[in-house]
């Protein structure tokens, strides 16, 4: 661990000012990801700007009937908030599928969006990694890549984004509110995270000196027909091999609206408008779900150890859509897949 300076931001503007003053500074919220990476010497910020006491902890209804969630709302508070439980149970479920109760108590919404990949080479400073040290090479491409990406990869990096919450947010069409020295802006969650391309060191499109202030959920919550299914190597407390967020609106057995996002398969939550469009107007049947899965997985490529993910993702998509259609969402508390 490196030595670092510590400042506590007084308000958002102060945080932005502190960030601008020191390009090697980092914001710290819950610290559950950043501190680990500092201990491993992966992150070496010159200064920690503590934003954990900023007043970004509210969950408020927006004028159009959506929800605005402050960037510092703890993951647990968000998952158990009555409005989220009632109107956006998909989000609650995805959050509860992640990490452990203790971590969710500490973790913030903003930190969750910004958490870094779990690629083991990224964590080990003794190995080459383009994301950690640009230009050194990607150890995973010909190495241990069982849990790496099958979609949107590049020759520079095949890492996945590990967040569960982001997968649900992508499916729900969430927006990210950002503040910086040149003012405020809003981006769609699906445009917030990047694909690695030739700049894998950049996980997101958040600019230098910018800070996430909130996320916003549109009114549509898919509270009846939804499911979040996370497939992993043990039944809790492991990152996804593949996860699926599915949300449907049904008229009878006909699909009027569909949302589908995959986690654990790409550098960002993976959504395909084409796959969702293909579901609209169709009956909620395994065949149609399978076709949507194929569209969603179009272009998937395997590396030496992760080929199984393609078929697993396909099956998981079908299962999750079935769970959503039958209004029997995956429970995150029971030790069983529905």
């Amino acid at each position: 661990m490196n030595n670092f300076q510590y400042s506590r931001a007084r308000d958002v503007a102060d945080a932005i000012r502190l960030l601008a003053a020191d390009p090697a500074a980092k914001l710290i919220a819950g610290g559950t990801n950043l501190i680990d990476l500092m201990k491993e010497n992966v992150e070496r910020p010159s200064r920690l700007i503590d934003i954990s006491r900023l007043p970004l902890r509210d969950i408020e209804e927006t004028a159009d009937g959506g929800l605005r969630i402050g960037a510092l709302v703890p993951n647990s508070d968000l998952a158990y908030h009555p409005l989220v439980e009632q109107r956006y149970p998909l989000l609650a479920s995805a959050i509860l599928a992640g990490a452990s109760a203790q971590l969710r108590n500490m973790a913030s919404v903003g930190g969750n969006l910004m958490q870094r990949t779990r690629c083991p080479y990224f964590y080990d400073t003794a190995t080459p990694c383009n994301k950690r040290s640009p230009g050194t090479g990607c150890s995973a491409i010909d190495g241990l890549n069982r849990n790496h990406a099958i979609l949107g990869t590049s020759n520079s990096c095949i890492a996945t984004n590990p967040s569960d919450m982001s997968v649900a947010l992508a499916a729900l069409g969430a927006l990210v509110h950002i503040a910086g020295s040149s003012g405020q802006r809003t981006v769609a969650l699906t445009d917030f995270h990047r694909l690695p391309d030739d700049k894998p060191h950049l996980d997101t499109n958040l600019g230098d000196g910018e800070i996430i202030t909130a996320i916003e959920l549109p009114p549509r919550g898919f509270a009846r027909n939804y499911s979040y299914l996370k497939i992993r190597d043990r039944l809790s407390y492991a990152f996804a091999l593949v996860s699926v967020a599915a949300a449907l609106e049904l008229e009878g057995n006909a699909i009027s609206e569909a949302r589908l996002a995959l986690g654990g398969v790409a550098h960002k939550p993976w959504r395909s408008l084409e796959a969702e469009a293909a579901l609209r107007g169709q009956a909620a049947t395994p065949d149609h779900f399978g076709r949507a899965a194929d569209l969603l997985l179009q272009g998937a490529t395997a590396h030496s150890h992760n080929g199984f993910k393609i078929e697993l993702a396909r099956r998981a998509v079908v299962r999750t859509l079935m769970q959503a259609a039958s209004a029997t969402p995956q429970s995150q508390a029971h030790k069983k897949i529905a």
Partner: protein
Amino acid sequence: MNAYVGTPTSRVDGRAKVTGAAKYAGEFAADRLLHGFVVAATIPRGRIARLDTSEALRVEGVVDVLTHAHRPPLADKDEAWKDEVAPEKGSPFRPLYDDRINFNGQPIALVVAEDWETAKFAATRVRVEYDQEAFATDLESERGKAARVDQPHKPRGDAAAALTRAAVQHEADYVMPSEHHNPMELYATTAVWDGNGKLTVYDKTQGVQNVQKFLCSVFGRKRDDIRVVSPYVGGAFGSGLRPQYQVVLATLAAVALKRSVRVVLTRRQMYGLGYRPMTIEHVALGASPDGTLDAVTHEAIAVTSRFEDFSRNDTGWADQLYKSPNSRFSHKLVELDVSTPCDMRAPGAATGVCALECAMDELAVALKLDPIELRLKCYSERDQSEDLPYTSKQLRQCYARGAEAFGWDRRTPAPRSMHDGKDLVGWGMATGVWEALQMPVAVRIVLTANGHAEVSCAASDIGTGTYTIVAQVAADALGLPIENISVRLADSTLPQAPVEGGSWMAASSAHAVLGAAEDIRQELARLAKALPGSQLADLDATKVTLVDGMIASNDPNGAAVSIADVMRHSKLERIEKEKLNQFAEDKSHARNTHSAVFAEVKVDEQLGVIRVTRVVSAVAAGRILNTKTGRSQIMGGVVWGIGMALHEETMMDHRFGRIMNADIAEYHVPVNADIHDIDVIFVDEPDDRINRLGVKGLGEIGIVGVPAAIANAVYHATGKRVRRFPITLDKLLD
């Protein structure tokens, strides 16, 4: 009198543990304590070309940086580095000894600072350059270089010929990955500088006297110079049998700086210690159509380091379990550029019996026999390697009681024939076997006139419950309530004990307590008889019992007097007896514990997700001293067996020779959600031959057989035979 032995007595150290009063090695305080942080090598093989500590030394608060080129002297003979349980062959690892790098993660420097954070920071400022050398770390690609080690099991008959003629044959490789112990407590040592060259070393270890002797020999000290203490151990599972390098480094720094030093390893650094070696197990079975075995061959190829030959008995277990006129066993080692493996719970058996029991299941399928029926057909009443009867072997009862509790008779034999909703259901079983060992242990008992007794011994309690059973046996033998017994363990100045391992400590310490208590009783009888006007004057000193604070004649109408009175009238405040218990050597019988393990899995057919919904483990291990800690011990073994079957695997990138999942987020052990019903049955197994109490020990048997039972259940559920462990879901997807 057995008021305590055999009962579910709660842990006597439970309160101290849950309240935090129990102190672990890294928690002891000392004046002006310094903190050491290890710098570890990042290559698997080569030499240190340059090690520049100047920048680290400039960090404020850094006191020194020890390296091979800058340290106090260390012993230079291999013999000096051989501890009680070091492999016979080889040259034990010596931290900071010279510029050679023998494995990735090897310590190359110790930064010592006034506080931990400073040491940790300064460690990043130590610059190192290596002369790298070609290396190999992959057992599978180096398999051809395997060399055979001496193996205890003699071949019987002509296994090769019998195999070729056998009507039904099964032959396969089973691949068991390397596994790391991951005890909750990190490896730690606090070496307290007592002045005048004397040290008290608080160490995380399974054997304080082993560490004490080792340190004295490595540092050329006299016996009284170093005392090693380890009152509580937060799990070790075999990784603490040998002294680990942090104890050398903490002591080295204390000697160098004449100050107290604490060294705590990080989780990642603990992956540079020992581990369960990866093995490729080749098993071939030949049988007649009726299920009688004609031939068994078992060959294991295991990893070891280039500098020490670590090997355990993976292959001989079939001789304990199944009658076969022909058998051949061999154990081979492949030397790789890795650290030396070490014991991990049921070393050899956890892996070897897994392969054997999967193979037996495959043979049962080929023979169209129920797996229990096959095992009963081959049941051996004698240990065939030495052709000896067992002191006791209630394995038949294990099969029967386990099967009944599990409901085995409702199993339909065909794979994929049992369902529960979307899940395929599989029922599998396997046999477990381990040794019932016992070792010389000495115990001191000090009985005071107020009716209290202190029982002390250098043995460790690694969380298994030694404090508790020692207290139970002492309370019964001395006729005192357990609250009046205090137990002191794991201090090298206490009476002799070997390392705690191999499942030998329960039997060994219990009988040592009995021996010392016997002396106390005789002394009391002598005193009682000698009292003026004693009611017990005519007493036969060998026929008395201590009970309820009294010394009483065994004759039901005989007299009894209060122990307190006897001591007071004899003007004695305390009676102290120390005795070394040796078990009479008896080579006429084999000594083993056994188990039958039954597992139910439910497998999501499309997604491959496996849940182990039920495990029944029926254990025959002689008399169970404490049914509560005993049950916990078996449950822990079952949980670990679930991990072996489904989760655990140390993953190395052989291009770097580095372990890539060196943390407990990515090295998976089962979590609560993976564990469902576990039913532990102790089968009655009276054994008056093995030792006085009929005790065999429970430390290892709980894990043996569990991975195979689960693998066999997965086959029964899915029709897929996975022979490469762990059985992760990708191996079940088509």
